[in-house]
């Protein structure tokens, strides 16, 4: 293997990329506007959740409960009749409908443990689940405060002092911005390397390369370094200027350590792009493979929903995906300020996955050239 060839062929890739202004514009969009839009779309885990209240009690207590829901977490509650409730939930007007039964306050004070019903639109996914926790905690807070005045004996005052570390206000934008970058890194690096290879085949240039003193490993490495470098540079710039700059997300840890982690991740994803390109026969096939790979990478890597929520088998399987480890190390370095001593397992995992993918891609690539 000659590094000069790898260098020259890589420069060729960069020059080719520079000739495609639309592609460049799309890359810029992906790492600026798209990151910004995703980060700012959902400001809090719970934002403007729509709630309606069926108040059949009309007591001071029920009014107190109604008054406890307000923006930004919730919309101002709509006061509706029991008959309206089903219809409104069917068409999706309300995610939550709280039904306070008649005589609720009276029964509560009489110690009859009355039931209050919360209807949740379960199709609303995470909002339904996070939101019902909020509703529960707001309702019990109000009722407990209300009931305390009527209680004779003093209950023990054990407070729970809850503090959230690394993102005290749970600003979703912090994490959202970083995952947007992570998703784009995987998407761009896989597509750039894979499509560059298929283009060479469709235009007959790969055949041309093979009569020259160039080996498959040189061709592969040239695509990996050049496309990897492009993605590394744009993602790092995006982290500094969009995430730290425009979105003012505080970065706790070392940016350089994160860039190193990104480079390892790119080693794995670019190798994956080449492997996919050797499997696909034409560009449309490659595009479909990309979708089939990108969707699980985005959805199951732990960036969209926590890994803790996945079944064991999925969790284990996804340990083979570079994104999983990359999401972990991004969280550790960027938010928890962890150093190499804490994230070395992820670095190692990325290196192993990258090397495996690279060897696989190289074997496929060699037979693909035959």
């Amino acid at each position, binding site marked *: 293997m000659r590094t000069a060839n790898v260098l020259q062929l890589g420069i060729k890739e960069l020059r080719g990329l520079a000739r495609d202004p639309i592609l460049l514009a799309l890359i810029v969009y992906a790492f600026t506007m798209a990151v910004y839009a995703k980060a700012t779309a959902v400001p809090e885990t719970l934002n403007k959740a729509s709630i309606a209240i069926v108040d059949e009690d009309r007591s001071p207590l029920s009014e107190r409960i109604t008054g406890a829901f307000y923006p930004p977490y919730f919309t101002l509650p709509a006061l509706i009749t029991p008959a309206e409730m089903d219809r409104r939930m069917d068409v999706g007007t309300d995610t939550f409908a709280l039904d306070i039964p008649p005589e609720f306050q009276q029964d509560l004070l009489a110690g009859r443990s009355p039931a*209050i019903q919360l209807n*949740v639109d379960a199709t609303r996914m995470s909002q339904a689940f996070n939101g019902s926790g909020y509703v529960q905690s707001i309702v019990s807070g109000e009722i407990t405060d209300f009931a305390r005045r009527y209680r004779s004996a003093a209950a023990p005052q054990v407070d729970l002092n809850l503090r959230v*570390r690394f993102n005290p206000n749970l600003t979703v934008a912090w994490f959202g911005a970083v995952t947007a970058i992570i998703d784009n890194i995987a998407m761009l690096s896989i597509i750039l390397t894979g499509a560059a290879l298929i283009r060479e085949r469709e235009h007959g240039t790969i055949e041309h390369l093979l009569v020259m003193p160039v080996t498959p490993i040189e061709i592969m490495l040239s695509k990996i370094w050049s496309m990897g470098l492009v993605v590394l540079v744009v993602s790092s710039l995006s982290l500094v200027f969009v995430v730290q700059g425009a979105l003012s997300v505080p970065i706790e840890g070392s940016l350089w350590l994160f860039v190193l982690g990104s480079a390892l991740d790119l080693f794995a994803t670019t190798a994956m792009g080449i492997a996919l390109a050797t499997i696909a026969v034409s560009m449309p096939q490659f595009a479909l493979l990309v979708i089939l790979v990108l969707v699980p990478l985005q959805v199951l890597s732990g960036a969209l929903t926590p890994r803790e929520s996945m079944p064991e088998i999925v969790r284990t399987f996804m340990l083979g995906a570079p994104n999983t480890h990359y999401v972990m190390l991004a969280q550790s370095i960027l938010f928890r300020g962890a150093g190499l001593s804490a994230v070395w397992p992820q670095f190692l995992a990325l290196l192993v996955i990258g090397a495996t993918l690279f060897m696989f891609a190289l074997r496929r690539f060699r037979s693909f050239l035959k």
Partner: protein
Amino acid sequence: MSAPDNARGVGSMAVASLRNVGLSYGRTRALDDITLDIPADRMVGLIGPDGVGKSSLLALIAGAHVIQDGQVEVLGGDMADAGHRRATCPRIAFMPQGLGKNLYPTLSVFENVDFFGRLFGHARAERDRRIADVLQSTGLAPFAGRPAGKLSGGMKQKLGLCCALIHDPDLLILDEPTTGVDPLSRRQFWSLIEGIRRGRPGMSVIVATAYMEEAARFDWLVAMDAGHILATGSPSELLARTDSPTLDAAFIALLPEEMRKEHRAVEIPPRGPLAEPDIAIASEGLTMRFGDFVAVDHVSFRIGRGEIFGFLGSNGCGKTTTMKMLTGLLPASEGRASLFGRAVDPNDIEVRRRVGYMSQSFSLYSELTVRQNLDLHARLFKLPSETIPARIDEVARRFDLAGAMDDLPDALPLGIRQRLSLAVAMIHSPEVLILDEPTSGVDPVARDAFWQILVDLSRHDNVTIFISTHFMNEGERCDRISLMHAGKVLVTDTPRNIVAERGAATLEDAFIRYLEDAIGQVQDRTQPPPAPIGIASAEDRRGPRIGPSFDLRRMFSYVQREALELKRDPIRLVLALLGGVVLMFATGYGINLDVDNLSFAVLDRDQTTTSENYVLNIAGSRYFVQQRPITDYGDLDRRMRSGALSLALEIPANFARDAARGRDVQIAAWIDGAMPQRAETIRGYVRGMHAGWLAEQVRTRFGKQASVGQFRLEIRYRYNPNIESLVAIVPAMIPLLLMLIPAMLAALSVVREKELGSIINLYVTPVTRVEFVLGKQIPYIVLSMMSFLLFTAFAIFIFRVPFTGSLLAFALGALLYVGAATGIGLLISSFTSSQMAAIFGTAILTMLPAVQFCGIIHPVASLEGLGALIGRIFPTTYFVTIARGTFSKGLGFGDLEAAFVPLAIAVPLLLGATAALLKKQAR
């Protein structure tokens, strides 16, 4: 529109007239102030060196390129006028330059011609008759079922001609149609055109050609140079004017002084006596089989060092395959080949450095400039970097590339591209040159110059040259030639001996006799005598169809073409259909809504039964898994930072005692907030458990009295009472998949044509933009609806997701939705020009909005900013509502009306925007 005869009346003076026409590509001026009347009903030839604007002129006349300056009138109307272009388009046939650039490689020969027949509006029976005719007369009939991509260069040219002739044009424009075609086929080709013209005397033909002996037979010639017209007139007029014996000489005489000076006749000194028989290239029984087909059949030869060895043969006879085996690109099925006495080994890097190879089709980087291409190859061949600029200058001078050094190859005419390929093949001064039709499409002057270089290399530098060609005068210059046919070498000898052997006058005659003998033996059954050309038989000739602004047949022509391509690619179909099912399952199974298995640990400074009881309350739940205790704050910090703990609790000293005494005590809890959603869930859990523990304490201590203030909160998860993740996710995954896959496929279907060149069919055939777009869209809508049915069936019967609403409403919503999804793909295709940009563009512009902003995870009403805006206009939002409504909520049309309207608006809107952005002419 006026009757065609009327228009032809005008054309009897000039079929095309150009006034002060100019054309620039960036800085390059391709045509400069051209004023020209091209007479009708004639065979008009356009001759001139490469890159003088011949192709640009033809593209303007055909209406393929937008007019920049001046006026172009064709068939009695202004070509700047879109209405006139539409009206005349069916009367013009344009065959672009390049081997089969406007053909579809996966479609068969028959299907390609059929596609054009439909575009020009012929009915089935008429089409079949015409196709049989043109295939018969071009000798392609035996290959009707072969994919166009698997044809040899010459056969592609013939197929291109068939496609151009299918609709009886009044004006036939051929841009170097016989480049790369063997002499026999070339003869057949021109007799075919002659036949057509005899049948239809009214047809005008304009041909650009590099073969002067062909041009000599034309009625009228236009000689061009550097964007200007040098001379016009009949061949005899040109000969008389320049006082030249041949057209070659006349052409050279017409050139400006400085170009003429450079030209000199090729002189070939005889080869000196060889000191020893030094064999550079040898092959022994070399054979290549593709399945049953024997492409190369036991070919043997030995080529001495410094010899110029010519390889002549009909198109598709195995020349290219033989050359590829010599370079190691193709492993031979049988036999052996060796270079410099060493067996050809694809992995032998050293041998590659001694060989220069130029393939038949242009295979350099179109994204690099001429200089960058040369530079890259020089470096790959390890030339010392300090000598590279000088070497590049040298080859640029030798191949006359100096003026084009900073241009991109795509902007260059074929002849200059060929010269670039040659320059690249020779940049490292190899000892052996293997050149596959290097001079196809190169003008006579440049060809002579090129041969002079070859001769110098052979005689002075002892370079061995293995060259294939269709030019007989080039064959005569070789030391020895092989004639090849159908995979076999017919004869190998010096050109003179071959001519003598057959007693022929010229090499071409000898060659054709050899070929005819060979064909006579083997092809009696496959190649019937050339049929009389019946295309123009008067009785079925109708006036050219002037298409309405929307024609179903033209649209279906594209539908059919796209569908055939899909059918030929079963892997794509399987990926699109089954891949989606796999994704649906993986994500449906993988996304679970409740979070469990959260790690937590405790710093218990109290160590009493009460504190243990508190911890047990948490550890006993299914949500948390307890880790080893925390020893101190340092340990706590370290473990949280590494992500090992999602929750840390600190129970203070004297917790049990103080709590029992009713004193205020505080338990501290730290949650890892790096992932807000998980943190939120943990916070909810911990609060709930803490409250539960307190209530329990109160109950045990105060008994019944404590029940004051006790209440139950009953949570009813509607539409998915058991909170099953498949039930929650699958109805949202169907909209996601039906956006990503159709958009991607539709976008690529158009951009592919742009990148591979067949988009020219949109420019020069009567198909309108709306027909084109719909023709591209419909096959993918059908495919997507098949996916839809499959996904829905899997969701209901395999994943057991209950379907409660109106299936019809769901299906209709899906139909509108895939219309919008393919529309988005097509819209993206209208502004991207490379497949790479189209894939990335489609991925970034559909995946992010669909996953994040369309209600799959967060309700659209809860979004803010740009995301909220995108969420409100992106079609996925509305189909997610329909999918969830019909799957889980038991809804039908009436309830979902509000979601159908935006989808119904989006489809025509996207179609209109795409048609408006798509260009009907090259710019």
